[in-house]
């Protein structure tokens, strides 16, 4: 018998054993400072009790939550722009938590690597880059887990006519060097994003002009009405106007609750608390972001206490971590999902019956149960539930007979041979999922060859439409259906060979309407067309599974999978 010392069932050491990398002195200091923090936080709870924060979580006093409490009706309505006048409270009303003393340190393992701290260029919709930089720089507007927009650097906004947006900036927000955050800084950041022509630039394609009537006011004029402007502005991080100077992003500054101490692309990103933050100091004194590629090393670091927080672990690692008394797992819906495209410009996928047959061939529930436990579930639309514009559809039932019948009707009674491109590390269990799906398709006579490609080549083939089938994950990064449906299914995008003028019309209208209820209706119709015409199969939507030490509190899992640690505190 082979010794099974790596089996985690036996002999787990008490979690108190200190990780070797942390000197004891630091630990002592941490203990001392966190004691201090608990003391002051209790005081703070008393101070801001009227702001309706739950008393049990004193450290949670989140500026935005306080703002919500203070601003009754307008922001709470599901359709934000339905009551556009002044959607947010005046800055003065925002209750600031009284001086909280930041304490302690956490180390966060990123699921993939950051290659830059520049949130405006090639990585401008990359969730990991956003996760790291959102602590340093800030957006005008944030989006809550329930889909509402809440003020951040913009204290309020209005939409006086369909093509004009006016944002009033907070007067008290300052960059880490003490300079005020002005309209000119916003303008420069937006111009940088547009000029970089990175993946965020298309979101701002409708912008015609950016005006700065005074240093606290931004006026954005769009060519056509834009219903997605607020959603897009939840991705635009604002840096000082001088950010375009060379080398700025090696150690950027912003107006956020944390300052960059040091950064190297393949080592740690270290941050420290910005005690002058306009929303009051953050809960943590220090924060480190790190990337470790190997799963075994990541899980080990979490178990030994070398790191405190990670997410996007493979599902097979979760049961053992769940049993660990020191760790906690938060599961939450996300904007990410898996899809399979079938190239509708190539036979036999030109026939919707063939495409539907492939959908009926998959036992989605069984696959999800066996392979994605805790990280994914059956999807019910071409976009995940938590996205604005989602509308549930009738699931494709698992029926090999129906699938074969559809194939026969399409003139393919004996099935056919085809291939599917995919790029490893695109999502949890991708390799296992590909093998499982291939097996199901083989059962109806469709022999799919797996083409596992390097990212560079996969992207090349994908863009050139040089593929039969494609399997990948995708994230509706802005949380708005426009980001995905308009980008991927409009004929002009021609991303998967599927073209439908009726769908184009719906998507165009939905993108340019500022009436959110109307938009929701239009996307519901678009959902239905895409689901039933099946240019793609949408088997699973992904859950965010955040694993962290129980000594952390105040974490709220976001659907965007870009966790924020602004209100996290650590107790020892």
């Amino acid at each position, binding site marked *: 018998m082979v010794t099974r010392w790596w089996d985690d069932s036996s002999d787990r050491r008490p979690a108190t054993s200190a990780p070797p990398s942390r000197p004891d002195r630091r630990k002592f200091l941490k203990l001392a400072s966190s004691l201090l923090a608990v003391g002051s936080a209790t005081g703070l709870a008393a101070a801001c009790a009227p702001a309706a924060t739950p008393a049990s979580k004193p450290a949670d006093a989140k500026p935005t939550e306080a703002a919500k409490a203070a601003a009754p009706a307008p922001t709470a309505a599901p359709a934000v722009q339905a009551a556009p006048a002044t959607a947010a409270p005046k800055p003065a009303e925002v209750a600031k938590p009284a001086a909280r003393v930041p304490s302690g340190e956490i180390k966060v393992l990123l699921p993939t690597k950051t290659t830059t701290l520049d949130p405006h260029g090639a990585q401008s919709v990359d969730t990991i880059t956003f996760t790291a930089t959102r602590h340093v720089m800030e957006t005008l507007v944030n989006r809550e887990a329930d889909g509402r927009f809440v003020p951040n650097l913009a204290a309020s906004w209005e939409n006086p006519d369909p093509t004009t947006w006016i944002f009033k900036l907070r007067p008290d927000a300052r960059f880490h060097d003490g300079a005020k955050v002005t309209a000119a800084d916003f303008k420069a950041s937006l111009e940088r994003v547009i000029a970089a022509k990175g993946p965020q630039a298309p979101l701002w394609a409708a912008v015609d002009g950016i005006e700065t009537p005074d240093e606290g006011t931004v006026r954005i004029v769009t060519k056509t009405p834009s219903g997605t402007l607020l959603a897009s502005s939840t991705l635009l991080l604002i840096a000082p106007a001088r950010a375009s100077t060379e080398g700025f992003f090696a150690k950027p500054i912003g107006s956020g609750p944390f300052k960059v101490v040091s950064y190297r692309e393949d080592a740690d990103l270290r941050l420290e608390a910005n005690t002058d933050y306009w929303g009051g100091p953050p809960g943590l004194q220090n924060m480190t972001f790190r990337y470790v590629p190997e799963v075994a090393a990541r899980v080990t670091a979490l178990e030994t206490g070398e790191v405190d927080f990670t997410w996007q672990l493979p599902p097979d690692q979760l049961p053992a971590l769940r049993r660990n008394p020191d760790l906690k797992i938060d599961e939450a819906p996300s904007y990410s999902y898996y899809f399979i495209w079938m190239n509708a410009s190539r036979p036999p996928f030109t026939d919707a019956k063939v495409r539907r047959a492939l959908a009926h061939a998959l036992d989605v529930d069984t696959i999800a149960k*066996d*392979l994605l436990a805790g990280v994914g579930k059956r999807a019910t639309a071409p976009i995940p539930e938590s996205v604005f514009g989602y509308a549930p559809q009738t699931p494709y039932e698992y029926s090999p007979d129906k699938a074969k019948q559809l194939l026969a009707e399409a003139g393919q009674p004996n099935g056919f041979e085809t291939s599917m491109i995919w790029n490893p590390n695109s999502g949890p269990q991708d390799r296992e999922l590909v*093998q499982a799906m291939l097996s199901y398709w083989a059962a109806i006579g469709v022999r799919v060859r797996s083409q596992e490609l390097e990212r560079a080549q996969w992207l090349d083939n994908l863009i050139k439409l040089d593929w039969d089938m494609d399997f990948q994950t995708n994230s509706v990064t802005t949380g708005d259906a426009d980001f995905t449906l308009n980008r991927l299914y409009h004929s002009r995008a021609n991303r998967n060979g599927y073209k439908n003028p009726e769908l184009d019309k719906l998507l165009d209208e939905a993108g340019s309407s500022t009436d959110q209820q109307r938009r929701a209706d239009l996307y519901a119709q678009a959902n239905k067309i895409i689901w039933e015409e099946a240019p793609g199969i949408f088997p699973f939507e992904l859950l965010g599974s955040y694993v962290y030490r129980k000594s952390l509190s105040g974490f709220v899992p976001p659907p965007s999978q870009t966790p924020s640690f602004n209100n996290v505190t650590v107790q020892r």
Partner: protein
Amino acid sequence: MSTGLRSPSHGGAPAAVSAQSPAAAALPASSARSERGRRQQLRLVLSAIPLGLFILFAAVGPLLMPYDPVTVRTGERLKPPGEQTRDGARAWLGTDQVGRDLLAQVLQGARISLLVGISTVAIAGLLGIAAGIIAGYYGGLLDGFLMRLADVQLGFPSILLAILIAAVLGPSVTNVIITLSLTRWVTYARVARASTLVAKERDFVTAARALGARDGRLLGRHILPSIIAPWAVIATVEVGLVIIAEASLSFLGLGTPPDQPSWGLIVANGRAYLNTAWWISTMPGLALSLVVISVGIFGDRLRDYLDPRFAGTV
């Protein structure tokens, strides 16, 4: 040229390209049939047994236990070795991350890994020996060019070269063999060149040339035989190193395709399960190590047998 870059190793880390083997100086075995000679022979044959067994497994195994690369049973995944599956069969080595029997996979892996190892050594050997003989025999500009090319390649970590070539060629078993062959011909070329230079100056070759023997005849009759022995010794050692190198490529996602899994690929794809389902990665890993060790021991014995200078010392 300087004395530089003459290395007597037989490689090492997967990344290593060795320059020249100690067997470079090896001469064909003397035909003396002494007691010692017979013992050498016996030791050689004995050491070939484990290797032969593995080759047998690779040849026959997949026929007895066919590996189905398509059908998976996700309900049967991650079963530990020896456990029964729902259809009553026993998974002697356990099941993998999608519920396939690991034993069938390891047997298929033996085929692919040995195929990659042996073909690479054969192709790299042919390329290298051809280059080495041409360089050594004709000398001059051609010699300079080929040997400088070898130097360039030596200055370049072979794993990086493999990554570059693999990226150009794309994934397939044939391409893996081509990639690895292109990174490992240098050793053979240097040995073949050295042997050719020595052989060329031997009295009988000089005599044959004086008598008007053709180049082809000289190469075939006199020079080639002197290269066979050192080639055989390096080749056995290299088989193991190539199998390991293929595993490294698999780790980087540039190995054999999933429907033709090498041991390296199974080990690499199972590595995220080492703390939850250790057998997926460990079973093929064990087989891989055993083969590399068997090949290594066989190589040692072969060298002893072929090289009288070392006779009796190992």
